């Protein structure tokens, strides 16, 4: 799958839906952790693996800690 913002958003939304943590009104700047989607460390690890499987790389593997969907989209937009 491509790394376009739309495809990355689809991957993240599908993942959050799968683990039943998709917040109402989820947006590009909704925090992924704590009061946002509330991902814990294992769920974040799973998101990392999912991004790698679907898009071929993921920001966590490079040492980044994206805080929002927008950060993840920016990682792919930068051509990583």
């Amino acid at each position, binding site marked *: 799958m491509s790394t376009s913002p739309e495809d990355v958003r689809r991957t993240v939304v599908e993942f959050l839906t799968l683990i039943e943590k998709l917040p109402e009104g989820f947006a590009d700047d909704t925090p992924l952790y704590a009061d946002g989607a509330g991902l814990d*460390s*294992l769920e974040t*690890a*799973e998101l990392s*693996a*999912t991004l790698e*499987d679907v898009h071929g790389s993921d920001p*966590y*593997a490079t040492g980044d800690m994206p805080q929002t969907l927008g950060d993840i989209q920016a990682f792919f937009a930068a051509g990583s």
Partner: protein
Amino acid sequence: MFELLERVAGEEPGRAAVVTHTVSRSYGELLADARRVAAALTREGVGRLAVVDHEAPFVVPLLAGAALAGVEVTQYPPVEPDEVRDLLARLGHDVLVTDRADLSGLGARVLATHELLATDPAPSGPLPVDRPHLVLTTGTTGAPRGVRHDWSRLVRGTSRVAPAPGQRWLLAYGLHQFAGLQVLLHVLAAGATLVAPAPRRPREGLAAMRELGVTHASATPTYWRFLVAEMRSDGGPVPALRQVTLGGEAVPGPLLDVVRSTFAGASVSQVYAASEFGSTGSMRDGRPGLSVDVLDRGDDADVDMRVVDGELWIRSRTGMLGYHGEPPVDADGWRATGDLVEVDGDRVLFRGRTSEIINVGGVKVHPLPIEERVAAVPGVDMARVHGRPNAMTGAIVALEVVPSRGVDLEALRSDLRSACADLPAAARPRSIRFVDTVDTTGSKIVRSHA
């Protein structure tokens, strides 16, 4: 093992000892071949050698003849010349017995198998005191190691095998594997017949069962899973087995159920053995794991077991003498097996290998219970649980599944998640992949790397 061959040949020389799709060799013929090999090795002044032939009708007399001559044999797996060269260097072999044309020029003196078998037989005589044999480990956790045995100790493990000349045992392992040797020794001790298809994949094993009258078969759980899947796929008849034996890996309870229902007329048993400590006998009650009766049997027992910090330890009088290139071990002493176990009521249940533990953010996760749970989900033909490196937690539990033909993969993915939903968070598979097959080494699932 020469003495086992000699005993049956003395009783009934024409009885079939080894059968393939193309040849049948009797006990008498193999005994004569073994004497030829012994004479040739003595004449050539060989003390140690490697064998790279894998057809049982040739390997059995090579092993027996070498034992008669007191020559240490190591059978190599069927590998390419570069790997043979590595093994020769690592194990210090300078004599190679083979009929393969691609193995000259590796720095070892080559003796042709067919020429050894064309020598005049050695006369009868007493067996040498030392009858060394070197077995390679399967190398599931690294490079294969040479495990030093003596035939007298190995044969001792067959002392309770009852005569059973009508049994026809499938050779599902290579004779370079310790499990293959165990099957061979059992067959010779019983005066039975070894059915040895080539290659030794489940497909050929299934064909041999159907066409060569196999009555008994011993193989790894992975092999049985493949064989059952193969049988379902081709729709052919279920072989009329009387005995199904599983070993070499922990045996999942759901697989026992599948095997029992598939081979309804067969007794189902499990064996627990390893290259280092030999065979420990079999469990015939059809339940997962071992009976707690195997623990703390006392000093008089040939095999005794105990649990130390969750790991099974064994003392065996049929086990190894040590590793090649290392100081001898206390052959009758206690050894850690590397198998993690848990005593649950009257059973000793296997939880995985110490080398297979997945460290998920500091939490140790055993793959086997997860694999068992997943394997019970309808639509799963095979499953492998392993650690997948992850920047967040060091590793996550990853699952590879071979789905049954025609299964809805998204529905199966959902079922897999549901089946694991009540596991501790660190043990839930965080990566699920559908694959055509899973990694195996020596017919065992490889779990120790991603």
